[in-house]
């Protein structure tokens, strides 16, 4: 049976893992390569590394980090941040990533999705969407870019559909409203996106307990869920989380 995936996310800034609350307030949580291995050993189904401050000048640092992290990582490994062209993506794949996550650059030039997919396969392209609800709720949810600093005026559900049509392999949906709050995922928004597309949807933003994951896999119709701060400070690990999910009837990869 296909299981629900638990994905450990490392937000990286200047070569260190950090975690913000609602996209600000940054706290240092360690070395990316070391944390990637630790998460994989602790039962994470996948690892995502997002360099939230990646710029052209600093790409070398990112590639070095990816290489180090990928060296002994035998679970799927996704890298995002600062990928603006098929060449940028190729460099990240050559360093050892299995998938890339693109966000602002896909909004700026949607053809990028097909360009990367054309060379590396659709399964290698994750379109990340940062979403914030409007006054009318889910229907009004808008896509934000540039690390959540700028609104695009685009509907989240429509952009997810377009990304799928252009050849995205998965959608990584982050709710900016719930991000870092540890009060649960935005299940309503996740379900709206998951129902609108055929490709898998990864829910992100708001993980605080095992019950939150069970909720987003059920009511939220998510195929996978991502957590960062919940793991870093030893709150729980993936194996513990999955054992609890299994007890509440969610199928997960156990033993792992």
């Amino acid at each position, binding site marked *: *049976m*296909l*299981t*629900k*995936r638990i994905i450990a996310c490392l937000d990286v800034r200047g070569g260190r893992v950090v975690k913000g609350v609602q996209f600000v307030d940054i706290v240092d949580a360690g070395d990316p390569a070391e944390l990637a291995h630790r998460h*994989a050993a602790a039962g994470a*189904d996948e690892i995502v590394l997002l360099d939230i401050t990646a710029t052209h000048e600093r790409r070398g640092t990112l590639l070095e980090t990816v290489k180090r992290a*990928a*060296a*002994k990582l*035998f*679970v*799927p490994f996704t890298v995002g941040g600062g990928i603006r062209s098929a060449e940028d993506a190729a460099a990240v*794949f*050559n*360093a*050892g990533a*299995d998938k890339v996550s693109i966000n602002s650059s896909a909004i700026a030039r949607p053809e990028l999705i097909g360009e990367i997919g054309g060379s*590396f*396969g*659709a*399964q*290698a392209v994750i379109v990340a969407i940062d979403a914030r609800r409007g006054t009318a709720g889910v229907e009004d949810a808008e896509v934000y870019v540039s690390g959540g600093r700028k609104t695009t005026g685009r509907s989240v559900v429509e952009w997810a559909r377009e990304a799928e049509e252009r050849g995205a*392999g*998965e959608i990584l949906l982050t709710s900016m409203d719930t991000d870092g709050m540890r009060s649960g995922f935005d299940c309503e928004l996740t379900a709206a996106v998951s129902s609108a597309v*055929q*490709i*898998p949807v990864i829910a992100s933003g708001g993980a605080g307990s095992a019950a939150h994951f069970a909720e987003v896999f059920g009511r939220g119709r998510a*195929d*996978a869920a991502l957590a960062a701060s919940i793991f870093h400070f030893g709150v729980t690990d993936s194996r513990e989380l999955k054992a609890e999910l299994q007890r509440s009837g969610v199928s997960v*990869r156990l033993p*792992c």
Partner: protein
Amino acid sequence: MIAVIDYKAGNLTSVVKALDYLGAKEIVVTQAPEVVRTADKIVLPGVGHFQSTQLLQDLGLTDAVRESVAKGTWFLGICVGLQWLFEGSTEAPDTSGLGHFAGMCERFPARFEGAELKSPHVGWNSLEQVREDSKLLRGVEDAGFVYYTHSWRAPLVKDTVAATNYGGGFTAAVERENVMGVQFHPEKSSAVGLQVLKNFLEL
């Protein structure tokens, strides 16, 4: 020498990295038929479109593989590499596979048993009916989890050595003497996947 065939279908880094990690000696990433002919083992990875396997025919690699496997060279196809061992795929009807195993690869159905079925099939799914006589799956148990990402799948055949269920059963691993294939990604399937690759290296 292990020849890892590069036919421009996705990313070979992970496969080579995993083989290297397991201590494989002399891994050669190649497009040259003469290298394939002299290899002790051949690995055909690949993610993406079945159409990309047309390059194997165009570069003379199909004939090289056919000759090599006929004289007993160990062969492992991964993902599209497994599908290519069958007769073909509805994904690219004009491109033939090796035809070593009977049957065509088909797309997952949009619906299964009355419910909508998401496609691609992405994530960790379990191996079922693992055959005890499989060399490739030695030490791999029923219900072991492996990582998949694909939209087309090979049918269950008499040489299927493990199945996975998603919209019905499909071939997770196939094996007849020296010719083997896995639909999942062993290089991304943690301990179970590394066991499979280790088994292949130790043949």
